[in-house]
């Protein structure tokens, strides 16, 4: 049997990411999910925006679109509308998805088109060298927040739920097996599935915030993530700087391409 990386990755490794970067863990978690789902690669589309995380599509042996900054979701929705029978995975980062792509994110959640979005949240703009993003915690340092950020951050998963995504989950790079399971569950769910992944950037985030060592960064991720079942027994004070992981929301919603197909049938049947 071929190793998973040979089955699902193109033979253009090594990747561009820094030592200690969490993106590779997410990429391998995705490949393990693929291995479990046994999807036909010819029938899978991978779409990404711009940033460190979005370079993932270059390595995946799929039909891949590395698009413009913030715009992965519009491209993905266009592709899904054109080929509703194909599976779509979208890869994005905290800057790409929550800042420049924020509006597209809201409306993709609302439409609930069947695809799986994986947002790698490393709390920083890594590719451009460490500027704060909308998901950088208050007070943390970045090159554009040298004295600590005064920008409030927000909870991307809560936004996704509010905007209508029918599957919302959060994983992290320390709990890699759980992450694979979440990606599998997100894929199996019919509708728009959002999976936020708490990740690490020791170079651009860690060094400025006193966690420069990749192992310490990993420990930091472990210490700041709490499984949903555990979190339910904790106080708001205890949860203040924690990320709750697991499936946070799952609901049945109308799937967009199915609704559009029904509309076409109705019109073609003469019923307007």
């Amino acid at each position, binding site marked *: 049997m071929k190793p998973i990386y040979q089955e699902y990755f193109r033979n253009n490794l090594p990747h561009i990411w820094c030592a200690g970067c969490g993106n590779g863990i997410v990429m391998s978690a995705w490949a393990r999910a693929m291995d479990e789902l046994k999807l036909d690669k010819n029938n899978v589309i991978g779409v990404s925006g711009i940033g460190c995380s979005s370079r993932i*599509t270059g390595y995946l042996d799929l039909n891949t679109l590395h698009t413009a900054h913030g715009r992965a979701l519009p491209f993905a929705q266009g592709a899904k509308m054109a080929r509703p029978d194909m599976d779509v995975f979208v890869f994005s980062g905290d800057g790409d998805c929550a800042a420049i792509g924020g509006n597209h994110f809201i409306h993709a959640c609302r439409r609930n088109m069947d695809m799986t979005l994986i947002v790698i949240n490393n709390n920083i703009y890594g590719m451009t060298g460490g500027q704060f993003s909308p998901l950088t915690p208050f007070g943390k340092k970045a090159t554009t927040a040298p004295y600590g950020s005064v920008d409030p951050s927000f909870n991307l998963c809560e936004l996704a739920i509010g905007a209508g995504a029918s599957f919302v989950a959060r994983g992290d790079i320390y709990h890699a097996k759980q992450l694979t399971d979440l990606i599998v569950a997100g894929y199996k769910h019919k509708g728009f599935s959002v999976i936020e992944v708490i990740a690490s950037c020791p170079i651009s985030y860690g060094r400025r915030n006193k966690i420069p060592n990749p192992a310490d960064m990993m420990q930091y991720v472990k210490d700041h993530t709490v499984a949903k079942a555990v979190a339910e027994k904790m106080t708001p004070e205890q949860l203040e700087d924690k990320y709750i992981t697991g499936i946070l929301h799952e609901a049945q919603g109308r799937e967009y391409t199915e609704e559009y197909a029904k509309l076409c049938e109705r019109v073609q049947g003469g019923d307007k």
Partner: protein
Amino acid sequence: MAKVRLVQGNEACAMGALKAGASFYAGYPITPSTEIAEHMAEMMPACGARFIQMEDEIASAGAIIGASAAGAKAFTATSGPGFSLMQELVGYAAITEIPVVFVDVQRMGPSTGLPTLSSQGDIQQARWGSHGDHSIIAIAPNSVMETYYQTIKAFNLAEKYRTPVIFLLDEEIGHLRERFEVDENEEIEIINREKPTCAPEDYVPFENVAGGVPPMASFGEGYRYHFTGLTHNEKGFYSSALPVVDKFNRRLVDKIEKNVKDIFECEELFVDDCDVLLIAYGSVARSAQEAMNELREAGVKVGLFRPITIWPIDEERIKAACAGKKAVIVPEMNLGQYAREVERIVAGSVPVKKLCRVDSELVIPEEIIDMVKEVLK
């Protein structure tokens, strides 16, 4: 038999798109282009084509490019402010060589400008709106019937050259209602992108082929490959190698510019037999033709050169048309965006006069007649 109807330019564009095989539309409402979206929303479901209203123009541009990568013939329609927002992705479609059509029903700018009034102010934006060197195809029809046929041509050229095509209506043409007589069963050449015939492992999606346009596989056809807005090698992966980058950028331009004879289309009226040549396009060309007719009845030798293809320009043809004339007059609804091209091409060999209106009104025949008389004094 063709049924005679009164049809609006925007509607003719929508009908032409369907005739061309458009199977996907994404757009965001904006005057004076909105009727195109409304017609697509109404007509597309009946033929199983897909319509989606996006959250903004950037999303619309992204959606059509994504749909085209997945095999659809895709387009959007907008106007100045929306077209400005789309520019980054016009460049993305150019660098990834994904065929799409952008309809821009021009209105008075800059910025919000005069939302319901006409302009031809996007001539240069269509060419240079996105950053970097790439070429582009742009078309500007002057009637409702021509809008129909040229919309089909826009899709054909997008597919043939793997490029974004800009379809430049102006508000006058977009909202003009006139006689429309098209046989729905008419045989019209429809061009679809050339597909690879090789085995997937031999496919080189961005190969430097003769002619400059490599075959394009759509997603789901067994050719798993990569599109990126990064400068890429022939395989489609990022490259910063100097010869690769240079060759790639030149091919993007050459595949259009070196095929200008195939792409460029114009109408020439009395061009060989005139002292003064008018060069006009879109709605203003109608005024120019009217002025020419009136002047010729009075014995004044005036001709009209009407570019239908705005970009690329067949410079040899313009040079030949202008040669030996007493003057060339370029009336347009902007401050000389096409006239500057004519000036550049004739390079001082013929006087070029600009006749510009930027008050949102159409240049009228009387103004053109006055200027012809002025230059012949």
